[in-house]
């Protein structure tokens, strides 16, 4: 397991109650719901009910929860194909997410986008992007709009360790820094691109943080499996952005419990690696944290039960939902609602 930077390690949690119970329960709820929903997506895939591809965040829930909890309404998120967690964390109904994965008419985009492109503008999910790196400059643009209009929202983009080696990463970071944009770059370093260890193809140890100085930014590496740490770090970054002090680049160390995508049994993992990371399962860590802060097991179990119930209910609705109708095949190519390229 990668060694963490000291600055980011949580002080003894018991001595520290800057976060508060309400937020903590929220973050736990988010993590558990994401876990349940992602696990369900996997099960549905095995039943051949999730079509196409799908990229789960099992094991990475703390990043999504910690960041989402640090956001204000109106803040914008730009996600990748591995975006279910971030979408759910902002309150998008599970049914609509699973519906999209199942390519049903009740899906967030009625099946037109698919699992890699979850979008819910109403919840600030400004799209999920499946071309590596593309959304980093786009998030800069949204932040530029806020800066230009004097609006106080902040844009965040989530991406993986592998994304730090593509050109768009470099261009976005430089532009954000030069223009002092209210944008946050959150790298979820789960140690792998698809199947290749990030260390095999990257010139530095911490693929995001070791590049921060190249854009005049401070080096930030945190334990991405501890939602409190993520929350505190993200909150600082949001404050900084809102204060007009420019972007942050945050590297969250984490691990995905499942394969890269539904097609991947993840055989490339060294023996014992998954098990070691499962000991640091974000939900396990956080359940413990809640107990340390005196949250009763009843409350914890109630959250878990409620999450399962919600996912069950959403699943049933999705199974009953119709397929998208033929007539939407050609809608919404252009703003007039259609696809006419000629008169």
């Amino acid at each position, binding site marked *: 397991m990668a060694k963490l930077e000291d600055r980011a390690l949580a002080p003894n949690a018991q001595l520290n109650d800057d976060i508060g119970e309400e937020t903590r329960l929220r973050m736990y709820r988010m993590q558990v719901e994401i876990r349940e929903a992602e696990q369900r997506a996997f099960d549905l895939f095995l039943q051949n009910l999730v079509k196409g591809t799908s990229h789960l965040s099992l094991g990475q829930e703390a990043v999504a929860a910690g960041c989402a909890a640090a956001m204000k309404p109106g803040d914008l998120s730009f996600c990748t194909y591995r975006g279910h967690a971030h979408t759910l964390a902002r309150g998008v109904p599970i049914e609509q997410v699973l519906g999209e994965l199942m390519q049903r008419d009740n899906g967030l985009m009625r099946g037109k*986008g698919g699992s890699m492109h979850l979008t819910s503008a109403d919840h600030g999910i400004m*799209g999920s992007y499946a071309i590596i790196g*593309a959304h980093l*400059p786009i998030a800069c643009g949204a932040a530029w709009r806020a800066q230009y209009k004097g609006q106080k929202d902040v844009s965040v983009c989530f991406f993986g360790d592998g994304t730090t080696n593509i050109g768009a990463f470099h261009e976005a970071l*430089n532009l954000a820094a030069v223009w002092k944009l209210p944008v946050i770059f959150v790298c979820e370093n789960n140690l792998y691109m698809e199947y290749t260890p990030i260390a095999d193809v990257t010139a530095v140890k911490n693929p995001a943080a070791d590049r921060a100085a190249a854009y005049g930014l401070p080096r930030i590496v945190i334990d991405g499996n501890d939602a409190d740490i993520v929350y505190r770090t993200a909150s600082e970054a949001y404050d900084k952005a809102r204060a007009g002090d420019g972007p942050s680049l945050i590297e969250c160390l984490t691990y995905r419990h499942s394969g890269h995508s539904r097609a991947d049994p993840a055989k490339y993992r060294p023996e014992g690696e998954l098990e070691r990371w499962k000991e640091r399962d974000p939900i396990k860590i956080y359940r413990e944290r809640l107990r340390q802060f005196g949250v009763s097991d009843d409350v914890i179990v109630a959250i878990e039960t409620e999450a399962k119930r919600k996912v069950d209910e959403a699943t049933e609705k999705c199974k009953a939902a119709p397929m998208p109708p033929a007539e939407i095949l050609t809608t*919404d*190519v252009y*703003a007039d609602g259609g696809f006419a*390229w*000629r008169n």
Partner: protein
Amino acid sequence: MAELTYRDAVIRGIAQEMTRDPDVVFLGEDVAKAGGVFKATVGLYEQFGPLRVRDTPISEQAIMGAAMGAAMTGLKPIAEIMFSDFFAVCFDYIANEFPKSRYMSNGQLKCPLVVRTGNGAGSRFGAQHSQSVENWCMMIPGLKVVAPSSPRDVIGLLAASVRDPDPVIFLEHKSLYATKGEVPDGEIVDQLGTASIVRPGRDATILALALMVPRALAAAEKLKGEHGIDCEVIDVRSLVPLDTRTILGSVARTHRLFTVEENPRLCGWGAEIVSIVADEAFYDLDGPPVRITTPHIPLPAADVLEDLALPSADRIAERVRRSLES
């Protein structure tokens, strides 16, 4: 009425829209303080200030991405890509992001932006700074693609592009920047998707775009003067939306079709239009539809070679004559 260069029309067009709408912003390399490498944005920085007219690093992907993110969330950005050849370094935005986000999001996202660029040959810049890339854009569903040939159209179509709710690729022809034309006073707003019959005629329809429009017109005059052949010349202006009505109407009258393309041979807009006409107006045609193009080669730098590569008025006239007389 004033006589304006095509270059100054770009400035006036952008200024007109920036004056009208404070959400219109403009970004690109060397566009602000320096006024652009083609001097087609001189004075905008002074007029609209550093927040609205922004110099960027040499980061075409960041330019395009920033424009898109801003467009999605409420601005109306105009992004400049200095030479259209550089679309290749930010093609992901052109091909995969701008045109797909509305569809993929089932209409939740929008992308109302304009990408302006210097397109086309004639400056002896060689293979990486001279291309006509309108087909790179036309082939992508979700984009709109415009290429004006006159100062007046520059202003009117640019205004229409900025006001359009979809992503528009606006191709300015480098070899037209210094050309002049009459432009009415006051606001000019044209309409996308409208071709323009710039010379009526009865014997054949010649379609042209941008720099090829004056050449097609010159060819038509020559054909009339020397051979009594009366060609209708249509400035296509807008490739997407495409004004097939005007095109098919013309072919129905003249029964012959010629397209004059600056882009290389394969898969150009000429092929698209010829195919439409061949399919939908087959029985209107009295002879084969003919594409006149640049050969399928990278462009040479040397003036003598570049001049040979591009369709000239003479080559157009000769090809039309040969075809009609055979």
